């Protein structure tokens, strides 16, 4: 190894990115070449000095900064906003056929579905067939819980409603397991944890309600449901 090559390798050596053979050759050169060894010592010394001067950055008002960023951005768009460009004629024709097909399938399902199994996306429905409907039913329950007064509002969450959601969750879990949908399984675990916490909540102490709200926030369930729907938007819409 020449001293010129050494410059190329020294930072990779520090990052631990050299292969065993390269590392051995590099270290062999260091032992044989006092000049390169001294230069590595100098670099290490500067590194050490820089590390000694690292102090934590001061705090910042990140909320105020976000408000300024949000104000400077264009108004919020709908996630699935249609494109503003005029579509070609064939697209209108295709859309017409597709609409006809979807309406046909919809009518057929309505006509042939057994009584009492309408897909109503409500927590009171007997069974919600898709994750999307389940999330739609769950979201108001979570919002209602977050917005409820801190204590003594047990009436808003009747146990039958929570039990239905928990039972429904088990059926969705079986379906997710069958489809090997790992992300849905993980999300259902989080939802189950939160629903069980709500079901067994001692409402006499406002601190308990606050803790469950924190749990909902930490698990990011609302965002994860949104992400799941976004990820599976094509599959769901057909």
């Amino acid at each position: 190894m020449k001293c010129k090559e050494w410059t190329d390798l020294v930072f990779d050596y520090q990052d631990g990115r050299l292969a065993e053979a390269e590392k051995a050759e590099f270290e062999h050169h260091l032992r044989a070449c006092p000049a390169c060894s001294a230069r590595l010592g100098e670099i290490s010394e500067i590194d050490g000095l820089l590390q000694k001067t690292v102090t934590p950055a001061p705090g910042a008002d990140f909320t105020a900064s976000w408000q300024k960023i949000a104000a400077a951005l264009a108004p919020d768009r709908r996630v699935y906003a249609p494109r503003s460009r005029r579509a070609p004629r064939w697209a209108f024709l295709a859309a017409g056929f597709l609409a006809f097909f979807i309406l046909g399938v919809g009518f057929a399902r309505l006509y042939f579905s057994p009584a009492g199994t309408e897909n109503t996306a409500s927590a009171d429905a007997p069974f919600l067939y898709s994750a999307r409907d389940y999330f739609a039913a769950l979201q108001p329950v979570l919002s209602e819980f977050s917005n409820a007064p801190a204590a003594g509002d047990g009436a808003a969450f009747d146990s039958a409603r929570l039990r239905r959601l928990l039972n429904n969750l088990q059926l969705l879990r079986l379906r997710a397991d069958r489809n090997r949908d790992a992300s849905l399984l993980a999300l259902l675990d989080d939802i189950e944890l939160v629903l069980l916490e709500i079901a067994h909540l001692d409402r006499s102490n406002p601190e308990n309600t606050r803790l469950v709200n924190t749990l909902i926030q930490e698990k990011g369930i609302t965002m994860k449901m949104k992400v799941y729907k976004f990820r599976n938007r094509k599959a769901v819409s057909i």
Partner: protein
Amino acid sequence: MLQMNGYEADWVALAKAGDRSAMRELYERTRSRIFSLAYRYAGNAADAEDILQDSFIKAFSSLRKCQLNENSYFATWLYRIAVNCSLDHIRRRRTRESHANAEWSTRLSADTENEGSATPEGEYLRGEIRQQVQRGLAKLSSRKRMVVVLRHYQQLKIGEIAAVMGCSQGSVKRQLFRALAQLKKELPVGLGE
């Protein structure tokens, strides 16, 4: 170092579609690192906040148009925007103030000294070293200083710095090597002992 998890990929996709809550989520997850980078580079909290805001406004405004296929590239891309905003910010400031580098050193010293006002002997020595290093850093060119900040304060690897700075790994190594050599000249021998 700049890797993100699976859900963040979806947040990026949602943010690209214009979803404000996904943008907020991405902001929450990356703001500290971007602020830290801006602070280390600009040398004071007020400028760092300006850089932070400029970076995210630029990032979210152009996210829809940019080609981000892999989620892991979002952080690198955001870093690159923050680096450019930092360089622009300092360039603008330099046109306003003729002694920007000297001021950078003074401001950073003042900010860091405020963190621990009661200094025992060891802390005093540390403060001295810190001031020497800051003076040395202030004398580096913008890009060399940025390379040192990314390497030593943000702990990025050479490949990541190259991606962020938009240059080759060889170029990063050369700049880092020269920056460290220049720092070595600026700093008294045996200061760290």
